[in-house]
């Protein structure tokens, strides 16, 4: 009979904990008397039938004691690991119940999740559909957590059951050595493996899996299997950060070692570069070079004071990918995720990270200034293959939307992972610059991303001609484009955002000081996040959840389409 939700609600580790201690004590009572085994030996020089019989009896006795010690040891570790596994089940049950409570769902004894909230009516169809979808997604997530709890319970049951079966069958043997060795051998046979994550799990499935691990099991995963979780959307970010730091260190050691070898190979005894040798190892040489620079940048970011985190790391892709955060993404009230564009590399992402650190501080300052206490975390997401100059004529070109579409799918999972990993959803804003805004646009065309607001700046298009295709509330999309920003007027990927119906606009133009001096606003495709600029201020307002305080206004220039001009009627768009 498979376990039901009602069954596992009654699971608690206490009895297993007591049994673990008692079994260990029982085992030790045997191994502590190892000297008795030696003492049981008959004197040398004793021969004859009686001696032979005694010898046989003794051999059997010692063998059986070793087996018994091994079996009790196996029972001890099996019960110990089962106790920890049950702690994981309890954790999974608890988060499922928390989710249900927060979402106004009920979980029946058979595990069915029911929606307790009454139906809403909204006049705006787009928003109503969005809410229905979000509700459905949330119910589905709750159901996933119930499933994960049951899967964990089944795993604990299966692991413990397997050891019990071995004890029953007598296949746990104590070997030919000491009692201590028999104990160690038995312990090893009783151990449970940590339940691995679901293959190709969705962020919600991954979150549910993580919730089903006990604290000890999570530590084991971080330390022994960091690659399971470093990039796994849905796992809490503190754990991803720890795992990725470990992976970064490991990669650094490997890269440094290989680099030293290749450098020796490519230089003669006078230190001159041997081009012919370089050609032989060029592919690896260039890859290592790129990795070294990436590792250096990431290492420097993490080493500096402040709340920096490495939320993603991937050396297996053509160019290194990484995700870096400022602040605590697991707990911040407001989270902003920024996706940069053309020529962005991990090696060069320090500047973007710096912009995001400043945005975090600026947003927190603005919130405090208006009387709120909200905390903020900002993320620079370079989890895709941003087109480079070198790829301009390849499929990974800025001229094609391929990278943006693929990147958009990954980015959508990252957004989902933020909501799945946290008990309370943050106020989430997506930021996208240049080609990164196209990627963000594609990400927002996926269901269930649960992004509250999006700011696009300097965008060649969002991969769509209508904001209706974006899974974001009406009026929650913002566009900032500086005058003469040619990239922003490309309309290479869907419509020019400046002219899109329903798009809110953020001012980037000049302002004047009280004594009449003009302040240069943003011109061209330059830094929309310049410290103290109007656009940075507006972004801080939007990220902080106060978009009405942003400075609105279009910066329409000659390169913008007619439909963007102020006098162009809305109903024609």
């Amino acid at each position: 009979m498979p376990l039901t939700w009602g069954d596992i609600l009654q699971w608690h580790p206490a009895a297993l904990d007591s049994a673990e201690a008692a079994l260990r004590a029982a085992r030790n009572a045997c191994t502590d008397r190892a000297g008795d085994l030696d003492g049981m030996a008959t004197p040398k020089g004793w021969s004859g039938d009686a001696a032979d019989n005694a010898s046989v009896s003794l051999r059997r006795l010692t063998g059986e004691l070793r087996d018994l010690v091994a079996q009790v040891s196996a029972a001890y570790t099996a019960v110990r690991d089962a106790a920890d596994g049950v702690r994981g089940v309890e954790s999974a049950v608890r988060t499922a119940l928390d989710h249900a409570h927060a979402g106004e769902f009920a979980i029946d004894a058979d595990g069915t999740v029911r929606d307790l909230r009454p139906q809403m009516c909204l006049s705006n169809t787009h928003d109503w559909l969005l809410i229905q979808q979000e509700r459905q997604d949330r119910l589905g997530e709750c159901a996933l957590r119930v499933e994960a709890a049951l899967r964990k319970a089944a795993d604990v049951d299966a692991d413990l059951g397997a050891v019990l079966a071995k004890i029953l069958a007598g296949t746990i043997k104590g070997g030919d050595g000491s009692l201590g060795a028999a104990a160690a051998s038995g312990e090893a046979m009783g151990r449970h493996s940590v339940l691995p994550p679901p293959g190709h799990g969705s962020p919600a499935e991954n979150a549910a899996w993580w919730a089903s691990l006990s604290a000890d099991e999570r530590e084991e995963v971080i330390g022994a299997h960091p690659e399971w979780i470093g990039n796994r959307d849905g796992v809490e970010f503190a754990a991803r950060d720890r795992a990725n730091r470990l992976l970064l260190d490991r990669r650094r050691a490997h890269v440094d070692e290989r680099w030293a070898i290749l450098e020796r190979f490519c230089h003669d005894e006078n230190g001159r570069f041997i081009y012919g040798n370089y050609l032989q190892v060029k592919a690896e040489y260039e890859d290592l070079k790129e990795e070294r620079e990436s590792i250096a940048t990431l290492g420097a970011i993490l080493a500096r004071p402040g709340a920096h985190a490495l939320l993603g790391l991937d050396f297996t892709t053509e160019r290194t990918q990484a995700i870096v955060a400022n602040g605590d993404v697991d707990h911040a009230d407001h989270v902003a995720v920024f996706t940069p564009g053309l020529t962005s590399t991990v090696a060069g992402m320090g500047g973007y990270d710096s912009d995001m650190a400043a945005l975090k501080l600026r947003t927190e300052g603005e919130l405090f200034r208006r009387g709120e206490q909200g905390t903020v975390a900002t993320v620079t997401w370079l989890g895709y293959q941003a087109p480079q100059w070198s790829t301009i004529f390849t499929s990974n070109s800025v001229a094609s939307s391929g990278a943006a579409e693929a990147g958009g799918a990954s980015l959508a999972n990252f957004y989902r992972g933020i909501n799945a990993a946290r008990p309370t959803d943050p106020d989430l804003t997506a930021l996208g610059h240049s080609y990164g805004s196209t990627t963000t646009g594609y990400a927002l065309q996926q269901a269930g991303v649960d992004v509250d607001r999006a700011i696009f700046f300097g965008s060649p298009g969002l991969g769509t001609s209508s904001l209706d295709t974006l899974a974001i509330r009406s009026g929650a999309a913002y566009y900032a484009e500086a005058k003469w920003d040619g990239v922003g007027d490309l309309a290479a990927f869907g419509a020019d955002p400046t002219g899109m119906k329903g798009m809110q606009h953020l001012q980037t133009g000049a302002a004047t000081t009280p004594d009449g001096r003009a302040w240069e606003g943003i011109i061209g495709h330059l830094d929309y996040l310049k410290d103290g600029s109007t656009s940075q201020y507006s972004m801080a307002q939007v990220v902080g959840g106060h978009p009405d305080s942003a400075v609105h206004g279009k910066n329409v220039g000659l390169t913008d389409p007619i439909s963007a001009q102020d006098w162009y009627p809305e109903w024609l768009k």
Partner: protein
Amino acid sequence: MTYEVEIGALRAAAAAARAAGDQVATIHPGDVLRAAGGAIPHSGSAAAISEVAGVLERRVTDWVGAARQYAGTLEGNAAQYAHDDRLAAAAFASPPNTAPSLPVRPAGARTKGPLVVAQAPTSVPAAPSKYLRLGPVPE
């Protein structure tokens, strides 16, 4: 010629076996295991625990019995030799047993059985060894 030393050794071996038997008689892994089932009601393991507990209890009891029986036999042998010199001479006259009565304990005995290692499907594939085609780099 007396064989007091050898007879003493037999009695000591018997005493050691009795002590071991008494010690092992104090453990009740079966009872302990039975109580653990209460933590995980309705599971397959909880159902199996009762049977396994019984088996463990029986193995403990059997071993204690065997140890005491071994002790009893040695004590009986010792008494015989103490009483009858001829028997003792026959038992202890031959060259020493070259085969030790206890197996030699190998140093650093390996644990038996494979350690369980989970093969996890991961979202990050292992780095491909794509450089093999370039041949080894002279070190």
